């Protein structure tokens, strides 16, 4: 088995044992990137020399006896929304083309310190706004399972890179499902930690009260190892939770659901759900029951209002967060010919620098926050948010975790929903409630849909700081299904 097929845990162990160097591991992945990138387009920036420089430094640290974590020497791809001091950071927007941040995000800094080597920056929907990665200013990323299909979004570059064996691990951000949905449609594991469990410092903001950094991996344990490596309180992020990181690695190793109470969310299913998705989901629920879990149906009626509430809160926050892109201090500058006022240069730059979906959301949010409309829109949406959080709370009195399909459908064709925002927004129907409530949720592969042979994800939701429960259930499902399948789901993916 080649290096690129190894799990992150295996690679970390091999590097630690001196069986392979960080440089060799990085080179193998850089070669894979060079080979399949023309088909997948998962990366916005790859810089072989910078990556190998980092790998050499890790090898040096290990040689000098420095004690690094279990992922030292393991390569990683970062969603291009985390700042990196040695690589550009663009959020897939023209407005930040070529911008080189002078500082590292907390997530990237902590992972560097833990000895992970950055392979590059991955593609995304511009400023993380989208569910298909088609909103990138630098072209769409393709799903390694079917190059005509979307890899999910907004973290589609990160999901595709892991599914295409370009990287064993990657980071993403989940604001309304942007980790779980891409993980589901590419057949990998993606976790949205509890809001505040992972630092947003250095994460280019889309919607501050929702944005959550999280891990992608090809298996549950690797995701947990990555989760643990970058999580924990960060004094630079005021919304960061000052509590111990849930013991996610231990939970991923445990993978046991005997006696666990599992709630099936009644509202997520039926019309609009692809039959193949529902079939795999129902099998997964049956599987959990067979493993000793107690399964009940739970009704969360307000969850159907989550999508509209989300599309008021997220655009409102984004309309303010993206105001800083004004051509004054960094990024694109248009029309500065000495005749125009600062205001005109700002307007021309923003008109040229933002893509259509970003503009749509800025306008939605600007409207929703306007005086006279605030109470009816933003204020009302915040009330809905509170109701949803209470409904979750009530549900978690009855059960330990909730489950649902991660997405109503499998990966859809590139271009299919590009001109239909509402259809696109429905891709996040099942994932958004956890963002509004700040809860933890994971997506783990649960099979291929009969109609199209594409991956289906099982979403496991847990209360705030119950991240370990997500990993525990996901690991149990993974173990049982992989023994049924005779290996990971990804081995079913066609060769690239």
């Amino acid at each position, binding site marked *: 088995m080649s290096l690129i097929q190894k799990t992150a845990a295996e690679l970390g162990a091999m590097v630690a044992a001196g069986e392979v160097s960080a440089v060799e591991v990085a080179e193998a992945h850089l070669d894979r990137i060079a080979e399949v990138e023309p088909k997948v387009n998962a990366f916005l920036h790859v810089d072989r020399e910078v990556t190998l420089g980092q790998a050499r430094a890790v090898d040096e640290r290990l040689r000098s006896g420095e004690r690094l974590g279990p992922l030292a020497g393991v390569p990683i791809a970062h969603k291009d929304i985390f700042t990196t001091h040695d690589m550009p950071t663009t959020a897939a927007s023209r407005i930040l083309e070529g911008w080189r941040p002078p500082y590292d995000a907390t997530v990237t800094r902590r992972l560097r310190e833990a000895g992970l080597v950055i392979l590059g920056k991955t593609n995304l929907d511009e400023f993380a706004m989208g569910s298909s990665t088609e909103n990138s200013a630098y072209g769409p990323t393709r799903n390694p399972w079917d190059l005509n299909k979307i890899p999910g979004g907004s973290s589609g570059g990160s999901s595709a890179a892991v599914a295409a064996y370009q990287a064993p691990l990657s980071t993403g951000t989940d604001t309304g499902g942007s980790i779980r949905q891409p993980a589901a449609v590419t057949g990998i594991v993606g976790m949205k930690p509890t809001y505040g469990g992972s630092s947003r410092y250095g994460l280019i903001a889309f919607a501050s009260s929702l944005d959550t950094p999280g891990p992608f991996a090809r298996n549950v344990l690797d995701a947990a190892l990555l989760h643990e490596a970058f999580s924990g309180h960060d004094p630079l992020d*005021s919304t960061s939770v000052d509590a111990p990181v849930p013991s996610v690695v231990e939970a991923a190793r445990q993978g046991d659901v005997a006696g666990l109470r599992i709630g099936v969310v009644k509202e997520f299913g039926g019309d609009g759900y692809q039959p193949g998705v529902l079939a795999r989901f129902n099998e997964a629920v049956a599987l959990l029951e067979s493993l000793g879990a107690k399964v009940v149906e739970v009704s969360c009626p307000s969850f159907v209002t989550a999508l509209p509430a989300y599309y008021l809160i997220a655009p409102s926050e984004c*309309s303010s967060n993206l105001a800083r892109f004004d051509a004054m201090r960094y990024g694109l500058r248009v029309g500065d010919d000495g005749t125009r006022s600062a205001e005109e240069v700002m307007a021309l730059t923003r008109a040229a620098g933002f893509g259509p979906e970003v503009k749509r959301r800025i306008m939605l949010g600007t409207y929703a926050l306007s005086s006279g409309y605030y109470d009816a829109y933003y204020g009302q949406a915040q009330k809905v948010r509170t109701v949803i959080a209470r409904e979750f709370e009530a549900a978690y009195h009855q059960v330990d975790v909730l489950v649902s399909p991660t997405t109503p459908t499998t990966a859809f064709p590139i271009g299919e929903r590009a001109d239909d925002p509402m259809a696109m927004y429905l891709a996040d129907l099942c994932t958004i409630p956890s963002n509004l409530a700040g809860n933890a949720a994971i997506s783990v592969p649960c099979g291929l849909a009969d109609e199209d042979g594409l991956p289906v994800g099982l979403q496991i939701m847990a209360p705030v700081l119950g991240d370990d429960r997500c990993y525990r259930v996901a690991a149990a499902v993974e173990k049982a299904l992989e023994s049924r399948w005779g290996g990971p789901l990804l081995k079913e993916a066609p060769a690239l």
Partner: protein
Amino acid sequence: MTTTKMSYDEALDRFEPVLGLETHVELGTASKMFCGCRTMFGAPPNTQVCPTCLALPGSLPVANAKAIESTIRIGLALNCSIAEWCRFARKNYFYPDMPKNYQISQYDEPLCFDGYLDVEVGGETVRIEIERVHLEEDTGKSTHMGGATGRIHGADYSIVDYNRAGIPLVEIVTKPIPGTDRMAPEVARAYVTELREIMRSLGVSDVRMEEGSLRCDVNVSLMPRGSSEWGTRTETKNVNSLRSVERAVRSEIERQGAILADGGRIVQETRHFHEDTGTTTSGRSKEEAQDYRYFPEPDLVPIAPDPAWVAELKAALPELPSVKRKRLQAEWGLSDLDMQAMHNADAIDLVEATVAAGAPAADARKWWMGELARRANETGTALAELPITPAHIARVTELVASGALNDKLAREVLEGVLNGEGTPDEVVDKRGLKIVNDEGELSAIIDEVLAANADAADKVRSGKIAAVGALVGGVMKASRGKADAARARVLILEKLGVSE
């Protein structure tokens, strides 16, 4: 546009003013409101900046706990209620000197609210009600280059210094202040003066209006006498001294009075005060109110001050300036008028320190409000900025009391200290300014003077004692002021064999 003005008295014969004051105080914290950058005034442009205060993508704010504490202390000093739970809010508008294009401020949940401040004007106490005290961040500073006015209109280009961006700023807003009538300008000034002293006594800001660490926006409206419906108000900015506060109110009363008397209409707008002319000119119109799209700042957690901690802060507040003035007045036995004059001259702290250094209150007052006030006035500096300390003054009064100096010599000593010649004792030594109280030396000088002024001496001998004045004057002159005049008089009369 220039408007004819109405005389102040005429305007007030017909209209009653309603005031409102919004004061911004830059807190003197070591670091900025939401990042760790320094806050030194006058540092080279853009040297006290970081990803957060430059609003680089991905950066986040972290609230300065000291600034929150200072704001609560200000609120307590202004008799406010302190919010048990409140949030920061984003105030959204685009401007190049505001890096994020939103200001982190507070909206409907201020940290402190519903307070008051009593000020004394013309022997009367006027209660100014405080609407709110809230915490926000300052913007950067734009400088408009080229063009004649230094304003953005007509400038060739602008440059921005972000050192100031993110410095903690406390905004103190009064409720509308009716009923000040002809005292309106004085009330406005007294309020800002008192506020400034409170900030100083709390030690939360250096409150230098000329450096912008205390800035005041003055709202004025007029209503016809007898009416109870307030008129349209204007907001005058760029009011950078206590005197300007007073002048800006007066100028707006005169300007608005003329417009209203002509049957005109006041435009709700921002106006700029001009130090040189003492008048205001139109700025941005507020008729189409800007929509700031306030919403709770999602990057920060709510502030929930522990009531026990607030109680501790309250208990630990320093003696407030007005209370202190009353106490000192009683201790010093000075008149209302003296105290008021000292207050207006910013001399109270100096006198207090001088008394603490050993001087009698009356003497301390006399020097600071006399010789030194004159000197400060001549050189256009504040009393506290003079190169002389309360300890110096105390030493001079001690020398006078011991008879080593008389008033004239004492003034010379002060002049020497102000000229940088050293401490009072050093000046006395260097300039040789000791009173001549060596009887032999004095006697010799008197003999010379009597010999040189035989006519005058004869007049005295013949009983015209009044003529002794000329002889004493001669002695003082001959001793270059160092003789003790009273002692000289006694000796002259003795020598001439005359008794009074």
